[in-house]
């Protein structure tokens, strides 16, 4: 990883000096070694603070909606899953492709500081990544973790190490593209009884504080004005005074990104209350795959997403609800 970061840093400086790009968007070091912040670098000297390691999780594609509309070309480092989001934004005409120079950057999975904390490492002041293990230096001593055990949810269910759009690649250690079952979590809920499902979501959604982090971080949420911010929509509300509002917010959000969600997992990563929001999105992905054929949003920038498409012999809703277990 460190080697990848060094190459990336050098290449960024090169491209800046050559004038190919006038800005670079990447990740900047934080206070504790696990809190990298997305940042735009404009000078070669500034790139000293560039970091790329197991905590460079933030998906930079969303920033490119604004950045690609500014003067000059920007260099963006995109991880494999981030490239799906970018492709999807091209499809929706939200980014100006010509203004972005994409370097696809190798990703070995990103670690989750919350998992590290939950597993008993309190007071983490720095984290070291040794490839296979992650060592958390804490105020109360060092704790070593198997890296696979502390990966972000989105990385545990990684959809592939392939970059689907790029101008050049930085891949030092090519990795196997072993497909993982992304839908185990969804299936587990599907197998519950309706009452259990309701109780599960009621408890999870009751934690929602309506901070909108899931929405604002989501690359598919690119509306200029969100329905929840529009006083004339009739559903705008800043808080959830009633349990219904919690459901409404998350149903509408999940539905609105259905067919466009690339499953980048940022919503679950940023939720301050750890609501498993990815399950909502994956339910839609699973259903669409089952009913309308395999579809991966963002795999290309042309095909029509399933919900703005149809075929004359689509399954009837009644047929599907009949086979869907308990009525």
């Amino acid at each position, binding site marked *: 990883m460190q080697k990848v970061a060094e190459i990336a840093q050098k290449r960024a400086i090169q491209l800046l000096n050559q004038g190919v790009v006038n800005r670079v968007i990447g990740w900047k070091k934080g206070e*504790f070694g696990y809190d990298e912040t997305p*940042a735009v670098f404009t000078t070669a000297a500034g790139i000293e603070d560039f970091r790329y390691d197991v905590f460079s999780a*933030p998906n930079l594609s969303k920033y490119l909606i604004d950045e690609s509309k500014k003067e000059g070309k920007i260099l963006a480092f995109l991880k494999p899953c981030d490239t799906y989001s970018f492709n999807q934004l091209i499809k929706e005409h939200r980014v100006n492709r010509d203004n972005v120079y994409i370097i696809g950057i190798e990703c070995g999975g990103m670690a989750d500081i919350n998992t590290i904390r939950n597993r008993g490492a309190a*007071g983490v002041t720095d984290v070291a990544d040794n490839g296979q293990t992650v060592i958390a230096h804490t*105020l*109360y001593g060092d704790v070593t973790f198997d890296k696979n055990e502390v990966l972000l949810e989105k990385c545990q269910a990684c959809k592939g190490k392939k970059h689907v759009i790029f101008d050049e690649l930085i891949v030092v250690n090519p990795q196997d593209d072993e497909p993982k079952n992304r839908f185990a979590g969804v299936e587990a809920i599907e197998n519950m009884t309706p009452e259990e499902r309701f109780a599960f979501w009621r*408890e999870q959604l009751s934690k929602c504080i309506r901070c909108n*982090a899931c929405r604002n971080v989501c690359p598919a949420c690119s509306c200029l004005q969100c329905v929840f911010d529009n006083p004339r929509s009739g559903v705008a509300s800043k*808080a959830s005074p009633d349990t219904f509002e919690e459901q409404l917010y998350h149903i509408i959000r999940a539905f609105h990104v259905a067919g466009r969600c690339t499953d980048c997992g940022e919503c679950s990563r940023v939720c301050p209350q750890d609501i498993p929001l990815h399950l909502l999105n994956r339910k839609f992905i699973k259903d669409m795959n089952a009913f309308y054929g395999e579809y991966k949003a963002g795999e290309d920038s042309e095909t029509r997403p399933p919900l703005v498409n149809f075929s004359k012999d689509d399954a009837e809703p009644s047929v599907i609800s009949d086979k869907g277990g308990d009525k």
Partner: protein
Amino acid sequence: MLKIKKSNLDKLYAAISERQILYVPCNVAGKPNFAVWGEGADVDLVSLKTVKSAKEVFFPQCEDIASFRKEGKNISVKSEHKESGDFVVFGVRACDCKSFDILDSVFLADPVDTFYKTKREHGTVITLACSKPEETCFCSAFGIDNAEPEGDIATYFAGEYLYWSPKTEKGLNLTKTLNSLLQTATDKDNDALEKEQKKIKEITGRLPLYVLDLSYWEADDLLEKFNSEKWKALSESCIGCGACTFVCPTCQCYDVRDFDKGHGVQRYRCWDSCMYKDFTMMAHGTPRPTQMQRFRQRFMHKLVYHPSNHEGVFSCVGCGRCVEKCPMHINIVKVIKTFGGDDK
């Protein structure tokens, strides 16, 4: 100084609950937040910080303030203000306890917020000293002692016991009702407690954010700070969500909204965030159209406007929730450090 065995805490909760509502950090779906205690509640006094701060008990995220009903040609308006019943908040950390002072300075100043006031009057705050401070903590920068919290009753964990020290009349009154459960601490206990506090102080001294230089913010040059070029770079990666505001113990802005029930209107207030586009939206639009302006507003309020209106008290208690929860890891510490750097 009194004490109670850790294993007897459930009895203590039950005894308090008999007389009044008890709020205590409980795990719901894996996350600790203040909740009403009931039989079988998953009380969590180990986690250092609840996700939402204890301010929620006095200033809930949503609160009905009035309702309207149309009857014929008349509209009846009814205030939803009610006198609060007595209640107890247990397990409040030193930082959260300090935040009540800051909220008081806003809500109890003229015009008094009666909704908040009644809850403050009827609430008894039982604080809990921090046993394991974390890297995100910087309460020391604001003169808060995490080992010696304030409140109506201060409590401390050491060894097998929870130590109990009433500090105010309210605290003494509550303690009286619990006499059968509490024992008097011995000299040996006091030694154990002192040792524990020393340990906490030692750890606190090693916290990475222990020393935070706030002198830049004490200087009186509002416009220089306001017009600084640094805000732009600081706010660049802010996605404009309200996570920092909603987990913050001192953020006190709220919005007033109406809900059409179909048979009347419910007017409620709910937490608002200065990070939102529609914050203080007016007929002509928003006064802060860019995220940089909104970002600046939040930190100028905490570090400049609030102190200049309240005798120099910063509107931050260093709980570190924003440090922990920001999706992009931007926070007040970065702001303080960026400004308090070389060119101070």
